[in-house]
C-alpha cells in the first residue's frame, strides 16, 4: 500500500519536489504581478509572457536540482 501511494504521489507531483514547488511559485508570482499591475491594462496583453518566463525558470531550476 505504501509503495502504491508513493507511486501515486510520483504520478501527480512527479519525481522531484522542485517542479511542483516551481509551478506553484510561478503561478503565485504571476498572480502577485497581476495584483500589482492591476487586472486591466498591460497585464491582459503581456501577462502570458510573464507566466511563460516564470514557468521556464521553474523548468530550469528543476533540471538543475536533478543534475
Amino acid at each position, binding site marked *: 500500500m505504501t509503495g*502504491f501511494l508513493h*507511486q*501515486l504521489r510520483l*504520478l*501527480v*507531483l*512527479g*519525481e*522531484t519536489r522542485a*517542479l*511542483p514547488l*516551481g*509551478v506553484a511559485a*510561478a*503561478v503565485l508570482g*504571476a*498572480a502577485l504581478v*497581476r495584483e500589482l499591475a492591476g*487586472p486591466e491594462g498591460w*497585464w*491582459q*496583453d503581456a*501577462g*502570458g509572457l510573464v*507566466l*511563460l518566463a516564470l*514557468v*521556464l525558470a*521553474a*523548468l*530550469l531550476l*528543476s*533540471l538543475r536540482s*536533478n*543534475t
Partner: protein
Amino acid sequence: MSFVLTLLGAMLAVALELLEALAIVLAVAVSRRTRDAVIGAAAAVAVCALAGALLGPVLVAKLASEPLELVIGVALLLFGLEWLRKGVLRLAGRRARSSAYAEFVEEREALAAAPPDGPDWAARTVAFKGVLLEGLEVILIVTALAGPEDSRAPALIGAGLAVALTVVVGLVLHRPLRRIPETELKYAVGVLLSSFGTFFAAEGLGVEWPAGDAALLAIAAVFVAASQAMASRLRLPRAAAA
C-alpha cells in the same frame, strides 16, 4: 488550430501511457497466465472509468470559468513540465531512453516464477497496479485537456483514437513496441501539455492572448527552443555518457 493541437496532445499522451500499461499486462500474460492478467487489468479499467465519470463532471460543474482554467492550467503544467523535464534529461543523455519494451522485459523477469494452481493474486495485483497507475494519469490528463468547453470534443476524440491505436499495436506486438521512438514522442507531449498549461493558466489569471488560440503555437515554439537549449547545455560528452 487549438482543435488539432488538443487532439494531438490527448492522442499522444494517452497512447504512450496505454502502451506502458499494455507492456505490463503483456508481461504478466506471458510470464504467468493471460486470464489473471486480464482480470487484474479489467478491474483497474473499471476503477479508472469510475474515476473519470466522477472527476470530469464534478470539476466542470463546481468551478466557474476562470478558476477552472487556472486549475486546468496548473494540472497540465504539472504533467507537461514533468514529461518535458524527463525529455530534456533523456535528450541530454543524463537519463535512460524511455522504452515500454524494456519495461515489458523487466516485468517478465520479475514474474518468472511458475503461477500457483488457483487464482494468481500476485499476477493480478501487478496487472491491476500497472493499469491503474497509467490509467489514472490518462484520466487526469484527458480531464484537464477536456476541461474548457471547446476542447472537449478533440480531447475525447484524441483519447479514443489512442485507445484504438494501442489495441492495434497490442495485436501485432512485440516488434513494433521496440521501434516506437518513445523518448521523442514523450518530449513532444511534454511540449504540448506545458503549452496548454501555460495558455490556460494565463487565461485563468485574466490574460487575453494576442492572436487567440494561435498563441499556442508561439508558446510551443518557445518551449521547444528553451528546452533544446537546456538539453544541449546539459548534454554529456560521448565518452562520459558511455
